[in-house]
C-alpha cells in the first residue's frame, strides 16, 4: 500500500515562529504536493514539486516556502507563522502524470496563536 505520512497530526505554534511541516512518501513518486484545507473553501494548492530540488508555486504560495532535498520527502515551511495560516495542511504525492491518482497524507492541523 502507498503510504504518505506527515510529521504531526496536530501542531500549535506562536505568531512569528518558523514552522516546518514534513511529508514522506514510500512509493517513489515523482510529484509531491502541499494543500491547505479550510472549511467552505475546499483544498487549495500551495506548492508542488515534480522532482528533487524542483518546485512550482500553486494558487496560494504567499507566506510559504518548500524544500525537496530527497525524492521521498517534501517540506513545507512557514517562515514567520501568522494567525491566518491556522488551517489543515495536506500533503499528497503521485507518479509523474499528474492525472494519476494523488495519495494523501493524514493531514496536519496547525494552530497559530
Amino acid at each position, binding site marked *: 500500500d502507498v503510504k*504518505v505520512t506527515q510529521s504531526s497530526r496536530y501542531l500549535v505554534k506562536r505568531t512569528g515562529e518558523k514552522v516546518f511541516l514534513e511529508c514522506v512518501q514510500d512509493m517513489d513518486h515523482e510529484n509531491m504536493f502541499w494543500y491547505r484545507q479550510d472549511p*467552505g*473553501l*475546499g*483544498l*487549495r*494548492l500551495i506548492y*508542488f514539486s515534480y522532482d528533487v530540488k524542483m518546485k512550482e508555486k*500553486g*494558487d496560494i504560495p504567499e507566506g510559504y516556502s518548500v524544500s525537496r532535498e530527497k525524492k521521498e520527502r517534501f517540506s513545507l515551511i512557514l517562515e514567520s507563522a501568522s494567525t491566518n495560516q491556522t488551517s489543515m495542511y*495536506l500533503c*499528497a504525492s503521485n507518479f509523474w*502524470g*499528474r*492525472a494519476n*491518482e*494523488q495519495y*494523501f*497524507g*493524514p*493531514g496536519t492541523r496547525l494552530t497559530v496563536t
Partner: protein
Amino acid sequence: AQTVTQSQPEMSVQEAETVTLSCTYDTSENNYYLFWYKQPPSRQMILVIRQEAYKQQNATENRFSVNFQKAAKSFSLKISDSQLGDTAMYFCAFMIRYGGSQGNLIFGKGTKLSVKP
C-alpha cells in the same frame, strides 16, 4: 479561470438508499479529467472515481457511478446502497490536460454526506 462548484454543502441519506452529489465546473478547455475524492472523518482522503473527458461512457466503481454531461459541464456522483462507511466529505475535482502534461487539481468546496442508520 477554471472553477468547480458543489452546490450542496451538506446532505444526508438513509442507509441502503441512493444519493446523488452534484458538481459543475467551468472551463473553455476540451481535454480534462474529473475526479471525486472522499475524506472520511479524521481519515485520509482517497480517490473514489475518475472520468476522462474524451470518454463518453460514465465511469463506475462498484456502488459509485458518475453522470458526466460534458455539454452541461456537470459531473454528479451517485452512491447506491449507501453504507455507514460512506459518511465523509466528498470533493469534486478537475484537471486540465495540456498535450503531454497536465494542470493542477482544482477542487470544489466539498459536500458533507451523512449516512443515517
